[in-house]
């Protein structure tokens, strides 16, 4: 059996300056906080992050922002992170905003080995300004290009050593899409079971998409319920 399990330091050490990184999660659920904290500790700079949101102040992606490690965010919203909004408004952080489902679809398009798709979403808005336009069968459409990445950081609830992954409840969100779309996919898991321990029909991300797996010894506070 080819074991994909590595320790967290080795898992993150492959990420260098200037890397493009996809990060799973929508709010807290599905965000790989431990992998992100290790990325903060190892400190590569000039990163481009692709994620639904920028987490909340003081957590996850925000720690990378506070460490000046991030050049650009490609996200659907950053409304819960006032630090990210401030950096953006001061021109110190490049932010590319995508409609949420288009962000998901651009990631999936890369993961499916395709080179773009046509949509009418946002066509009458300012977000469409720089996008190529086509008219197909009398319909005005935008070309949305795939989002590829060097790395994906994924949070799973359950995994086996082959790299099969399962997500809990609403923690699925962008994780299965990003696990398809990056060249090198690093997953952290809360629970590790022997091969055969996961129902083959219930697996969300099949093993061939996953390159490295980190078994979490436990969860940090960031994973818990946030009391606002």
């Amino acid at each position: 059996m080819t074991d994909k399990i590595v320790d967290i330091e080795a898992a993150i050490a492959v990420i260098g300056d200037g890397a493009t990184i996809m990060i799973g999660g929508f709010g807290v659920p599905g965000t790989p906080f431990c992998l992100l904290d290790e990325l903060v500790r190892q400190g590569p700079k000039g990163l481009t992050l692709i994620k639904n949101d920028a987490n909340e102040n003081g957590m996850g992606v925000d720690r990378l922002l506070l460490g000046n490690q991030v050049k650009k965010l490609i996200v659907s919203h950053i409304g819960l992170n006032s630090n990210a909004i401030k950096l953006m408004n001061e021109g110190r952080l490049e932010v590319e905003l995508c409609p949420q489902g288009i962000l998901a679809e651009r990631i999936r398009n890369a993961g499916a080995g395709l080179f773009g798709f046509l949509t009418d979403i946002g066509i009458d808005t300012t977000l469409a300004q720089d996008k190529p336009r086509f008219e197909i069968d009398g319909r005005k459409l935008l070309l949305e290009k795939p989002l590829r990445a060097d790395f994906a950081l994924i949070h799973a609830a359950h995994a086996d050593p082959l790299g099969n992954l399962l997500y809990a409840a609403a923690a699925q969100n962008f994780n299965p899409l990003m696990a398809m779309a990056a060249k090198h996919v690093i997953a952290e898991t809360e629970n590790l079971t022997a091969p055969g321990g996961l129902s083959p029909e219930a697996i969300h991300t099949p093993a061939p998409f996953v390159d490295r797996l980190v078994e979490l010894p436990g969860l940090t506070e960031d994973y818990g319920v946030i009391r606002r």
Partner: protein
Amino acid sequence: MVSSDAKQRMIRRVAREIEAGMTVNLGIGLPTRVIDHVDRDLSVCLHSENGIAGVGPSVTYEQADRNLIDAGGSYVSIQPGTAFFDSAVSFAMVRAGRLDLTILGAFEVAMNGDLANWMIPGLFTPGVGGAMELAQKARRVVIMMTHLDKQGHSKIVRECRLPITASACVNRIYTDLAVIDVDAQGLMLREIAQGISLDEVLAATEAPLQVADNELPTF
């Protein structure tokens, strides 16, 4: 300032939009509160952009599952028959026309149904989230908002001044003052809030309003 009583009446009125068997997405903020006024027996399927069909009622922090939030970040429960899925499937559901109804907030609605609810340039740009897809692709788009903004200006306008979310997408507007349909011929006043006169509604509305009936129902 809109009284909480007026807001409550608006919420209760909007709740009547929701019919048995519908799949519905409720926007962040005021729209989320509509669900508390919907008859549970209607078996409405609440869709949340982060990958849930069948969102249940909100729960307290003590009851919360850390992996179970709605798109607005509130901790929610599930119901018998809830399904979880990824964000691509979630928006496939939206774009392919499987949402019967979405109820959204707004900064401005124009007389042709243009909606602006995602960006106030220079002031607040939190992002776009799922708003464009919901506004463009839900089978029915209903707006609930205060009739006037904080400066007292009409949010129902001739043309949107703010960057739009989607063009000609709104079917109906609910405010604390009125219920207004966006028809092919323009805006049609359908109902008036209790204690509000027709003249008050007309004065509070920048865009031209047609009046559906001499005796408008109240809510």
